[in-house]
């Protein structure tokens, strides 16, 4: 059996999410060791554009499961659709993004097809034909090395770790997969738009976070302005969330979100172990804190000892200058 890899792409509002391109990079590298072809599947409603984009990333084939019943998320329908494609494509490895969507779909398809799923991997190796994955556990306080006892196996990859593949190849063939959607007992009936926060923390390139040093809800204003300048997602420490200064959905840490942006700016965050767990795999970490002994400085690449209210306005102006020069 050929050791093919099947990428499960993820769309949003009709276009592919960045993590899908990152999965192509991972699959290409894996395929070198496993010796199979890389194929991809896109699932949803009216997703012709997603399929075409995917076909240009260098994959050898794209499966398109396009059904009006998949216009919003219904676990039973997506599970049935992906299971159908897996049975057809017979891959040795099924790659998903470790997003909310990918984790949920991976678990349900894993149960349906009796497959193992290695969640949220951040690195891998192919050792003598065997896949060996590394994944953070305890929210990053430790790293586990996990391997499947046999193939096929499902693997989800943490967003923002691998470089995205580019579109540029001649289009691969797109196969439309016919599929009879079951009547779902659970489904999303409405998208509820959230106010203010627009950049998803998990996929954000930049994250600007505030902590106890913000002192109040108003204290988050300069932090939010800096985030806006950078096009960054706003994050927060548990202390700031517990104090009610900012929405809990911004919490970064073991009981909040785990992030791995290119740049993480921690403002007035001391660096409790539960916070560090959620952001230590960021590429570059900046910390601004009044306390020179704050644990956050142990993980920071660049630190400023000072009050965030003195530092942030200057940062904001300086970033604006640099960004306008581009």
């Amino acid at each position, binding site marked *: 059996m050929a050791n093919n890899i099947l990428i499960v792409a993820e769309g*949003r509002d009709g276009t592919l999410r960045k993590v899908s391109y990152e999965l192509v990079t991972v699959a290409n590298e894996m395929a070198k060791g496993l010796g199979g072809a890389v194929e991809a599947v896109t699932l949803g409603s009216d997703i012709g554009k997603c399929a075409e984009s995917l076909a240009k990333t260098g994959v050898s084939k794209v499966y398109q499961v396009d059904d009006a019943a998949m216009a*919003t998320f219904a*676990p*039973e329908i997506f*599970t049935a659709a992906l299971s159908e494609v897996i049975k057809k494509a017979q891959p040795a490895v099924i790659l998903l993004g470790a997003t*909310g969507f990918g*984790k*949920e779909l*991976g*678990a*349900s398809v*894993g149960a*349906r097809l009796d497959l*193992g*799923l290695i*969640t949220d991997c951040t690195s891998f190796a192919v050792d003598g034909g065997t896949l060996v994955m590394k*994944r*953070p556990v*305890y*929210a*990053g*306080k*430790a*790293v*586990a*090395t996990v391997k*499947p006892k046999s193939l096929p*196996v499902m693997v989800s990859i943490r967003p923002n770790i691998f470089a995205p593949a580019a579109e540029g190849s001649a289009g691969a063939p797109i196969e439309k997969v016919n599929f009879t959607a079951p009547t779902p*007992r*659970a489904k*999303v*009936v*409405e*998208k*509820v738009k*959230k106010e203010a926060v627009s*950049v998803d923390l*998990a996929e954000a390139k930049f994250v600007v976070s505030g902590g106890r040093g913000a002192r109040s809800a108003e204290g988050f204003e300069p932090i939010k302005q800096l985030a806006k300048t950078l096009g960054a997602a706003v994050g927060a420490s548990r202390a700031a969330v517990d104090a009610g200064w900012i929405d809990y*959905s911004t*919490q970064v840490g073991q*009981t909040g979100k785990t992030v791995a942006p290119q*740049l993480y700016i921690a403002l007035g965050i001391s660096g*409790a*172990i*539960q916070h560090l767990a959620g952001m*230590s795999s960021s*590429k570059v*970490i*900046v910390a601004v804190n009044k306390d020179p002994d704050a644990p956050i400085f*142990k993980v920071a*690449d*660049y*630190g*400023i000892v000072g009050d965030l209210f003195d*530092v*942030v306005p*200057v*940062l904001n102006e300086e*970033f604006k200058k*640099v960004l306008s020069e581009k």
Partner: protein
Amino acid sequence: MNVVVLIKRVPDTETRIQIKDGQVVTEGISWIISPYDEYGVEEALRLIEKYTGKVTLLCLGPDDAKETIRKGLALGADEAVHLNDPAFAGGDASTTAKVHAAALKKKQFDLVLAGKQAVDEDNAQVGVRVAELLDLPHVNSVIKLDLSDDKKSAKCLREVDGDRDLAETALPAIITTQQGLNEPRYPSLKGIMGAKKKPIVDWKAADLGLDPATLGAKGAKLEVINIEPPAARPPGKIIPGDAATAAKELVHLLHEEAKVI
């Protein structure tokens, strides 16, 4: 109504994880109910306060997990099932889900709640897998839950990938819980005293009609071959000077040296 909550015993989130010989050192750890499961326990208690009924906890773990189960009973749950068999140990999400599903088959329930993930292995699979194994609908990562008047369906607000969605599900269903759903209570003294008298039943593989060879480390599809500390980050630099000077220098370094801006 009957609500079952799946709970897991995990190290307190303030715990520093120590590693020896490729494994986590468990001595000296203080154990808690996984925070995401705690939202499930709280929601179950609130539902029972509103509609009357019974809250049952289901917990897979070694003998020591009894202490964690008692914590859940102290919060107000009525009874518990301890899935306690050496054959369950060392499993992965697929074997753990298999055991929970078999146990749920023996229970009457209208709703199952479980944390969206446990904060130790962060697999985020068991609740969803159990739903699939039992052919039940599921809704993941829920931050608001409202049952219909006839308790045959539920409206759930879920938060996934930065979006908020309103989902509807028929009941019985499995709903996974997360931060934002509620504010978990603390146990009362009366609750702690009362928990000692509440029933905890132990179920083993044989009680569930499961073959031990398909469970735990033997039945797992995945093998954890090593646990190690995360790679240490290279030492950083503190930028000297007053706030304005340091801030200017920082932006310069991010642009020229780190090249992230």
